[in-house]
């Protein structure tokens, strides 16, 4: 197994095209996750640097979504530690993880179907909205001011993702591609430090993939957001990501730049030998 993670210093590094990447933001140390007798993740360690785009790839069932769920605090690993910004993260509820600045999208879209696009994206701001119940009951004053301030931030995200025209539409009525974009908007609205994307390109045609890729790159470029994404499309992975982690049957079988990983025989045997798409 070729593991290149030691080549990257704890401090930052520079990518092939000259972008400067910061120090380690999140580190998974020896994570093991079991569901009853099934081992979903087996002793996996890798890190994510600040400002980079890290891809997690692997065959179906490798444990990638489970890893994302561990990062967002939905699953608690039986063994191992999660380190965030240099401090060990104690076991915490998912909403507390969100408050720390980690946002995500979901493999099967998890939008709130009873609300409009605007309301869905506004839910991304909920960790930042602090007015108490009494202030909200009164509305005028503190609560209204906070609502309008957050509305402004959300509108910027809506502009950025070009979904202005559908902001009042109930999300249940939207086609699949737009739903994915709204989900991204909701995650971005939280102004996260770390953005987790679970198969953001799933079910998209070439044009939609190009749009989504452009958005992801822009998010990383303009907002400096660190991104970890699960993806099957190797072309997307090669183009977008700075470094890649490869998983298979719950184990790590590759870790490095896309070029290094593609040259790794273990990875080729396990994953790329089978044709997709």
């Amino acid at each position, binding site marked *: 197994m070729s593991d290149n993670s030691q080549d990257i210093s704890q401090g930052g590094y520079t990518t092939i095209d000259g972008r400067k990447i910061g120090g380690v933001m999140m580190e998974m140390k020896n994570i093991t996750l079991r569901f009853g007798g099934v081992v979903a993740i087996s002793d996996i360690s890798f890190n994510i640097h600040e400002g980079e785009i890290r891809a997690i790839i692997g065959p179906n069932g490798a444990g990638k979504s489970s890893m994302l*769920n561990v990062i967002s605090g*939905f699953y608690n690993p039986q063994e191992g530690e999660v380190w965030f910004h240099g401090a060990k993260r104690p076991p915490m509820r998912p909403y507390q993880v969100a408050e720390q600045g980690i946002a995500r999208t*979901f493999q099967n879209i*998890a939008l709130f179907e009873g609300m409009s696009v605007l309301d869905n994206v506004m839910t991304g701001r909920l960790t930042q909205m602090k007015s108490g119940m009494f202030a909200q009951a009164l509305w005028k004053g503190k609560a209204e001011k906070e609502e309008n301030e957050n509305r402004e931030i959300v509108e910027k995200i809506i502009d950025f993702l070009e979904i202005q025209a559908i902001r009042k539409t109930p999300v249940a009525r939207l086609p699949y591609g737009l739903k994915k974009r709204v989900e991204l908007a909701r995650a971005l609205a939280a102004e996260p430090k770390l953005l987790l994307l679970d198969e953001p390109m799933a079910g998209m045609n070439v044009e939609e993939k190009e749009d989504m890729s452009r958005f992801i790159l822009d998010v990383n470029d303009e907002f400096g957001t660190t991104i970890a994404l699960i993806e099957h499309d190797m072309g997307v992975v090669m183009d977008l990501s700075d470094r890649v982690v490869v998983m298979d049957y719950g184990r790590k079988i590759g870790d490095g730049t896309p070029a290094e990983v593609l040259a790794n025989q273990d990875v080729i045997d396990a994953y790329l030998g089978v044709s997709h798409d």
Partner: protein
Amino acid sequence: MSDTFLYGIEVVMNGLMTGVLYALVALGFVLIYKASGIFNYAQGVMALFAALTLVGIMEGQVPFSHLINAIFGTNIHHFGWEVPAVLAIFLTMGVMVLFAYLVQRFVFRHLVGQEPIILFMATIGLAYFLEGFGDLMWGSEIKKLDIGLVQGASLWFEDLTSGLGGDGFYGFYIDVLDVTAAVVAIVLVVSLTLFSQYSKQGRAMRAVADDHQAALSVGISLNFIWILVWSIAGFVALVAGIMWGAKSGVQFSLSLIALKALPVLMLGGFTSIPGAIVGGLIIGVGEKLFEFLIGPMIGGATEAWFAYVLALIFLVFRPQGLFGDKIIERV
């Protein structure tokens, strides 16, 4: 042995009997839930309606007599004939099958794919509808249900156990009707479990409960299975209605038994046929014992809420009940 202890044993035995009767109603719930994911709040009213129809047919009542009299100013109530019990039971069963078909056709076919809570609320509406309908059809006075089941104390059992106490102890009181009900319930549970596990239709039922689309794709007719299931539930309701009706008369409070079946289901698990029996027994004995031991200290009449609180506490620790399917949520 002290009098209180002996009385306590009698309480437990009566609790077991009551529990079996609860289980009878709970069975109907489990069946429908297993096959369609619908929690049928109307099961209790179905028992009431079945019992009303049975009595109505047996006594030759004119259906909707009150309504007809109100509209046309007539004063008719009975046809003048009487129908023997066995035939009446068959006819009532026919009515329940018709009911199953109508419910399928007009209510649940239009609600396929809705969330469980919407389906539940639809069955609440159904319960109200059926209650009003049943009252309009047969009238809401209390009716006596007599299909020839033996009632009253079991003298044999009393004599058998009279030796356990000291002088003046008459032996344990058990109502023969309750024993009959217990036997019937056990027969029902066993046969329904066997049916569900081993018969072709039972297997189809379980397939439908698991995944509607997949069941359709292997050629199972959703509508037929649902009509079948509601008919079986109707049959179970009829049995429950007969047992309860013979015991305390056919009246509105019969439908409230359904409310008691709910904690039984919570304890036993919504998807388990044997769970209905176990849950029923636990609740039956539990509430009688609690009222006997602790009731007098806190004002009595605790049977109104004990079953619910017990089930609630249980649910907090084991949300799927004793034998229910574990609820797994993924994201």
